[in-house]
């Protein structure tokens, strides 16, 4: 693990992140799907991180978590010097590239994340039943009469536009991924509306993420870390956009 956090304007927001959300991110970096410690992780060797972990205070260890994430990013990129952290946007672009998501580096990080979340959401959409789809559409302000590709296109557009739709989808996707990979959903204080969709979406998102891990291009250990970690970070940013820090 690179011992020093590489200054990264896209990861500094972790300083304000919710403790529970940071814990999920740290667990992606520390443990594999079966709950076993990752062979390549170095985070648990940090005394400062361990102290914070023992106190369940992940907020105070955000830089250690971010550094470890940057390190895993370094392992996925062939052009990166091994062992040296890589900036978040580069990792995000790499993950999007592997999933064939059309994004441009000149776009803002949050826009790329929205496109990334929309792509995972799109993959899980087909596994939802018609009634749940229509219900969810209406909850984000899209006419329930729209169906099929038109409904999905409207949903994707709403997610890419930011605001409530992308916030809601970010949490649903992050929750589905957490449940599929750790067996436990996010512990979030959300309104009853969102809470209901968390359980409805957990299954379809889980199927989508499991299917992604079977794609040859992203079967490497590092992608099994960076992909869910990027989902989590993207969801944290959406969550923080709806929160007053002071």
């Amino acid at each position, binding site marked *: 693990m690179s011992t020093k956090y590489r200054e990264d*304007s896209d990861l500094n927001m972790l300083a304000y992140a919710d403790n529970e959300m940071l814990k999920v991110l740290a667990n992606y970096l520390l443990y594999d799907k079966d709950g076993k410690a990752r062979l390549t992780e170095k985070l648990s060797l940090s005394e400062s991180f361990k102290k914070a972990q023992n106190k369940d205070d992940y907020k105070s260890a955000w830089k250690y978590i971010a550094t470890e994430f940057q390190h895993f990013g370094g392992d996925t990129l062939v052009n990166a010097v091994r062992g040296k952290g890589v900036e978040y946007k580069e990792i995000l672009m790499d993950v999007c590239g592997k999933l064939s998501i059309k994004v441009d580096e000149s776009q803002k990080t949050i826009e790329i994340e929205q496109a990334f979340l929309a792509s995972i959401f799109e993959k899980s959409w087909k596994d939802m039943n018609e009634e749940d789809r229509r219900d969810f559409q209406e909850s984000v302000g899209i006419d329930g009469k729209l169906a099929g590709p038109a409904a999905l296109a409207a949903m994707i557009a709403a997610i890419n536009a930011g605001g409530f739709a992308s916030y809601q989808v970010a949490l649903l996707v992050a929750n589905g991924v957490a449940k599929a990979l750790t067996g436990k959903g996010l512990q979030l204080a959300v309104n009853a509306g969102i809470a209901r969709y968390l359980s409805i979406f957990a299954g379809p998102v889980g199927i989508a993420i499991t299917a992604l891990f079977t794609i040859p291009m992203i079967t490497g250990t590092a992608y099994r870390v960076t992909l869910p970690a990027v989902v989590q970070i993207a969801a944290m940013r959406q969550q923080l956009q709806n929160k007053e*820090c002071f």
Partner: protein
Amino acid sequence: MNFEAIFVVDWSKVKDEVIAGLASGDISIRRGLAYWSSASGKNGIVQHLPFLEQKIDASQNMEHILKGLAGVKSAVAVSAMVSTGVIVAAIVVQTIYLGRKLDRLQDTMDIVSKDVHSQNVLIFMDKLSDYMGTVESARELLINSSVIDQTKDIAHIHLAELARQRNALMSLLDNLIRYIPNATDRHQNLILDFTNSVIELLPSTIRLEAELYDQLGKFDMANHVVKTAGKKYWKLVDFYRSWCNQQAQGVITGESNVAGLLEENSDKLKRLFKLDFNQALLAEMPIPQIASVQRDLLKV
């Protein structure tokens, strides 16, 4: 450590009707005296409040000092707002608490003024320096209330100056806050720390101004200052909090250069935005109804 003696109200010896009147709004405490308020339908002084000598370490922050005085505060059923307001006002007037904080501000100001050549910042420092001087002079007048008849003329001059300088300062403070992202990392920290200190101290200096009006028996003016300056103060605090949130949003979207600054100062800022004792200092009090003979005395 800098222990100083202060006199705080000994609530255990305060008359029951005063305690009850404080809760109902029938009693108003001004400069150690409990008066019937204008709403009570009565007039005059009800009690010269009994005092208790306490030792405090004026070099500590206010929360720490108040914690040490917790026993005095909770002795009887006086609302936290009233007792905190009375105690903090006593600390501000009777000790060098404010003076120490102002000295610290002056040290920061010297560094900032020397290194930062922004006209806005320099003007602000200049105004603050003037204000601090006037606040300390006003405190000197308040320490010894027995010479009020000799200091009355000077007090009026001080009050006019305090109002003018306070208003100038408060209207410039938002410029200083807006300047922070343009400063170097080192100066960002200094200016933020400095801004925090000024915002923390303003309710104390506003209350000190009101206490000086009370000393002159101008209770309506005292209330007017607390009300109008308090309104501006909370507007300023709201502005500062919004600015911090706006900068934090910039950090979240990766567009702000003050990430480290806000992170380092996060706890300090959160503390500043919920200081109970500042709310107590700026709480409006009922206006005393003085007896005609007292009114004549105050006209002297």
